[in-house]
């Protein structure tokens, strides 16, 4: 479709060129060689070629270069190429379920080792160390529980506000329904749906279509 549109544009240009207003541009020649000109443009082009040896030579030169490029000696892939790729795929390090377990265990042991190391370096006894570790776990758990309870309270508050808001909207709409006749409701709801749909999907996509 695109080619056809631009082909028409070139059609008028090539016609003028065929009347002797100037020779072709490289783009015209490449589009001619690509068979990307419409019938009128092509006829105009060939008409000019019949009368202009310089343009004929320019076309022939570019045609030969394209042919030579297409005939370049192909680079050969070794016969075992795909096998070599598959071997590399097989050799890639993969982490299995046991690998993940080992990784997790190592991380946990490292964490314990760091905690123990910190206490040992601080010069405390084993009893103090155990008590300290216990205290650390308990305080962490307490802090976590406190954070969780506060988060739950905030969620409860938000839900409460949302419920009140819905109630207020419902009361307002009920009041309006008693006053406004039903056809106005239907029109308003349709308009609202259209506005929301176009906002979400994008007006441009609906009117112009998605560019491929």
């Amino acid at each position, binding site marked *: 479709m695109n080619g056809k549109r631009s082909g028409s544009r070139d059609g008028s240009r090539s016609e003028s060129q065929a009347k002797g207003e100037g020779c072709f541009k490289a783009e015209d020649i490449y589009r001619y060689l690509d068979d990307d000109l419409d019938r009128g443009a092509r006829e105009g082009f060939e008409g000019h070629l019949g009368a202009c040896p310089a343009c004929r030579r320019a076309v022939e030169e570019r045609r030969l270069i394209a042919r030579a490029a297409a005939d370049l000696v192909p680079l050969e892939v070794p016969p075992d190429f*795909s096998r070599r790729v598959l071997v590399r795929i097989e050799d890639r390090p993969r982490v299995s379920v046991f690998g993940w377990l080992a990784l997790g265990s190592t991380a946990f042991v490292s964490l314990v080792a760091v905690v123990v190391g910190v206490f040992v370096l601080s010069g405390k006894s084993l009893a103090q160390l155990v008590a300290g570790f216990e205290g650390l776990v308990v305080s962490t758990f307490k802090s976590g529980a406190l954070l969780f309870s506060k988060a739950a309270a905030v969620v409860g508050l938000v839900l409460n506000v949302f419920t009140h808001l819905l109630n207020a909207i419902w009361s307002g709409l009920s009041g309006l329904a008693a006053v406004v006749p039903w056809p106005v409701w239907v029109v308003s709801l349709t308009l609202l749906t259209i506005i929301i749909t176009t906002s979400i999907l994008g007006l441009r996509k609906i009117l112009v279509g998605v560019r491929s």
Partner: protein
Amino acid sequence: MSSMYDEFDDAKLVKKTLRGDKRAFDIIIQRHQHSLFNYIGRMINDRELALDFTQDVFLKAYASLKSYRPLFKFSTWLFRIASNSVIDYWRKKKLPVVSIDQSLAPDEDGPGIQVADDKPSVVKGLEVSELGRRLEKALDKLPTQLRELFVWRHVNGLSYEEMAEIKRMPVGTVKNRVFQAKERMRRILEETA
């Protein structure tokens, strides 16, 4: 050796590979290795390195096979991976990389130039094979981003639409750059004649 896999299209082979069927990926490699290697080989100009690169492209494709959408041609998806790898390589080698959607400086290679002149033809008296040898050498002199398009068009035989899909650019822009690549190639041949 022919098998029923040879009759499957790329999308089906991808599905089979994702289910763990290595034979399916073997067919994918065999189907695309030639075109990819001929592209990468012409871009890098070092056979062994190009072979490694081509292998890497298939490894990357295998690793990200889940992200392939059959809406697009598998070959263009592979070429996009290859093109990104080649661009990374050029950047590491500090070769100038200009995105092809950037407007290049207007010069005598632009597709809008008048072409008829009185200079002797650059191909006059040359056999196609001799011209091919000169062209192979001239490829090295073509700026990287234009060389890529030239190779895709003439060596790989890709359509403008396929190139536009690989580069995620409008078809018109790609066409314009391909014309520019061809004109630059012609001028290089002229200079080295």
